[in-house]
C-alpha cells in the first residue's frame, strides 16, 4: 500500500468506525447491546490514523473506548458486530463484548476494561519482540485518566530502562469520565511526563488524521530502531458521554458543539479532496460503502447463533 492508498484506506476505516458506533448506539438504546459501551465518536482520527501508521504485523493494546482503534488496526467488522451482540461467531465467541475485542493473531492484544490495564501487557509484548528480535513494535493506547494510574508510571519507566519498542499513545480527551483534566492533574500537557522517564514525547492534534499518521510513523521508526519508547499525546474529544449511562452534566453544550465543528472525518475528507487523492464522488462512495458494510455486519451478526450454554465452562484454562 503506497501512501495514497493508505490515506484512502484510512478514510474508509474512519467512516466504518463512525458508522459502527452509530449503529451500536442505536442498538444500545434498543437493549440489543447490553452492559455498557464506550463510544469514540469524534476520536476516529486518533484511533484509526495511529494504527494505520504501524506495519500490519505490529501489535496494539486497546482500551475500553477502543472501537476506532481496533477498526484502525484492521478487523473483520462482521465478527466485531457479532461480538457486540454477544453471538457465538464474535471475536470472543460472545464472551467478551464491547470492552474485550481482541484479535491476537492480527496483533490486537485486546481492548481492556480496566483503565491502565494494558500498560503492563504492552510492555511485556514489547519485551517479547526485543527478546525474539522480531522487529515488531507495540502501540499502547490509553487515555488521560489512565495516565494517573500507577501502572502507567511503572510501565513507562520499565520500557524506558529496558529500551523496549513501544509507543505509549495517549488519547487525551480531557475528561477522566467526568473529571476534567484541569482538575485531575496539575499539568496541562501529559507529554511532560515523558521527560520524567527519559523518553521523547510529542503532542499531536488528535483530530487531524494526517498529523497523527505522520507523528506515529516517525515515532515508529525511532522505536523500531531500538532506542526505546516514545510517548505521544493526541489531543482529541469524545462527542458522546463517557458511557451510555452518562448524562453529560460536567460539560457545556457549547464545548461539545465547538468540538463537533472540528469533526475529524470532515477535516480529513477536505484534505483528501484538496490533495486530489479522492473526488467528491469517490469520497461519497466510501462513506456509503462503510454504511453498507456495517449493515452487512449487522445482518451477519443477527443471523449468527447465540453461544450454546455448554460453552460457559470452556476456555477458562488452556
Amino acid at each position, binding site marked *: 500500500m503506497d501512501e495514497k492508498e493508505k490515506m484512502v484506506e484510512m478514510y474508509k476505516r474512519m467512516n466504518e468506525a463512525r458508522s459502527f458506533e452509530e449503529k451500536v448506539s442505536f442498538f444500545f438504546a434498543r437493549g440489543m447491546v447490553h452492559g455498557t459501551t464506550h463510544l469514540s465518536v469524534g476520536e476516529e482520527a486518533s484511533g484509526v490514523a495511529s494504527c494505520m501508521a504501524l506495519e500490519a504485523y505490529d*501489535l496494539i*493494546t486497546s482500551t475500553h473506548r477502543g472501537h476506532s482503534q481496533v477498526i484502525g488496526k484492521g478487523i473483520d467488522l462482521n465478527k466485531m458486530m457479532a461480538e457486540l451482540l454477544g453471538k457465538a461467531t*464474535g*471475536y*470472543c*465467541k*460472545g*464472551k*467478551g463484548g464491547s470492552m*474485550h475485542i*481482541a*484479535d*491476537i*493473531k492480527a496483533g490486537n*492484544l*485486546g481492548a*481492556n*476494561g*480496566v483503565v*491502565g*490495564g494494558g*500498560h*503492563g*501487557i*504492552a*510492555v*511485556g*509484548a*514489547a*519485551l*517479547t*519482540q526485543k*527478546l*525474539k528480535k522480531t522487529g515488531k513494535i507495540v502501540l499502547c493506547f490509553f487515555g488521560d485518566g489512565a495516565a494517573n494510574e*500507577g*501502572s502507567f508510571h*511503572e*510501565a513507562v*519507566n*520499565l520500557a524506558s*530502562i*529496558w529500551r523496549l519498542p513501544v509507543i505509549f499513545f495517549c488519547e487525551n480527551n480531557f475528561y477522566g469520565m467526568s473529571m476534567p483534566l484541569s482538575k485531575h492533574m496539575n499539568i496541562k500537557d501529559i507529554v511532560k511526563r515523558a521527560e520524567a522517564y527519559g523518553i521523547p514525547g510529542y503532542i499531536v492534534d488528535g483530530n487531524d488524521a494526517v498529523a497523527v499518521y505522520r507523528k506515529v510513523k516517525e515515532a515508529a521508526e525511532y522505536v523500531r530502531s531500538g532506542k526505546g519508547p516514545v510517548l505521544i499525546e493526541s489531543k482529541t474529544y469524545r462527542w458522546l458521554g463517557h458511557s451510555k449511562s452518562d448524562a453529560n452534566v460536567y460539560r457545556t453544550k457549547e464545548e461539545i458543539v465547538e468540538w463537533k465543528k472540528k469533526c475529524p472525518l470532515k477535516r480529513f475528507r477536505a484534505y483528501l479532496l484538496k490533495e486530489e487523492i479522492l473526488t467528491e464522488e469517490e469520497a461519497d462512495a466510501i462513506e456509503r460503502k462503510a454504511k453498507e458494510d456495517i449493515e452487512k455486519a449487522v445482518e451477519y451478526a443477527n443471523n449468527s447463533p447465540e453461544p450454546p450454554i455448554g460453552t460457559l465452562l*470452556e*476456555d*477458562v*484454562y*488452556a
Partner: protein
Amino acid sequence: MREITYAEAIREAMSEEMRRDENVFLMGEDVGLYGGAFGVTVGMFEEFGEERVRDTPISEAVIAGAAAGAAVTGMRPVAEIMFMDFTTIAMDSLVNQAAKMRYMFGGKAKVPMVLRCPAGSGTGAAAQHSQSLEAWFCHVPGLKVVAPSTPADAKGLLKSAIRDDNPVIFVEQKLLYRKKGIVPEEEFIIPLGKADIKRKGTDVTIITYGRMAESVLSAAADMEQEGISIEVIDPRTLVPLDRETIIESVIKTGRAVVVHEAVKTGGYGGEIVSAISESEAFDYLDAPVLRIAGKDVPIPYNPELEKAAVPSVAEIKEAVRKVMNR
C-alpha cells in the same frame, strides 16, 4: 540418592527449563546479580545473562503485567514477586488481565507464565512480609495455584508450571528454602493437580500443604505411639485440586483434619472441607471435620507471638484426639 535444598530444587527446575526452552526467562526484583532476596536464583545470571535473568525496578504491577504481556505473545516468563504480600500491587495484572485473557477473548489467548511468591511467616518480618495469600488466587478462575512442601515436589511441580499454558501462582514458603530433601538427579516432572499421600494411615486423614506438611508428619509419627494411624495427604496443587484422592482417603478413615498456615477465615481449608462434605465421603464421616489454621491476626513481630499465630504440632495432635473422641 542425593539431597538438595528446596531453594536449590527450584533453581534446578528453572535452569533446566531455561536450557530446554529459550522462551523461558526470569524477571523480578534483584533476581539477577544479587541472586534473589532469598538466594534462589544465585548463579543463574552468570549462566544465562542479563537478557534472560532480568532485574526489574521495584514495580510489582508491571512485573506481573509485563509477564502477562510477554506470555500472551509467545514467551514463558517466570516472574518473582519478592514477598507474596506484594502481590497486592500486582493484583490487576494477575486477576483482571492474566487470569481473564483466555476466557474473555474466546479461548484465543494463552498466558503461560509463572509467578513465584515467597510466602509465609517464621522469619520475624512481621505483618507485611509474612502472609500466605494463596486462597485469594484460588478464588480466581483462570489461575492455577501450586504450593509444594518438599524439594522434590517443588522441582517437579515448577517444571510443570513453566510448561503449563496458564498463569500459575507458585507459592514458596520461605522457611522451606533451606530444608533438604531427596531429589532425583535425572529429569522428572510432577503433573499439576495430583495429590501425594505423604503417609499412609487408617484412622484420620490430615490434608495439608506447604510448610505445615512437616509439622503434620511429625504429629503423625508421634501419634502412632498413641495407637492412632494418620494418613497425610498433600494436594500440592490447590487449583486444580485432586479431590478424588482426598475423598477416597476420608471414605477410608471417616475422619478429617485440614491444616494450613494461612489464616483460618476465608482460607483454602474451607474449600477442602467443602469438597469433603459435598462428596460421597459425607456418609462416612464419623466426626466433624476440623480446620487447624493460622489465627485470624496479622503476623506479629515478637518471635513467640509469631509462633503462636500459626499451627503447632501440639495443636495438630489436639485436633486429631478431638476427632478420635479421646
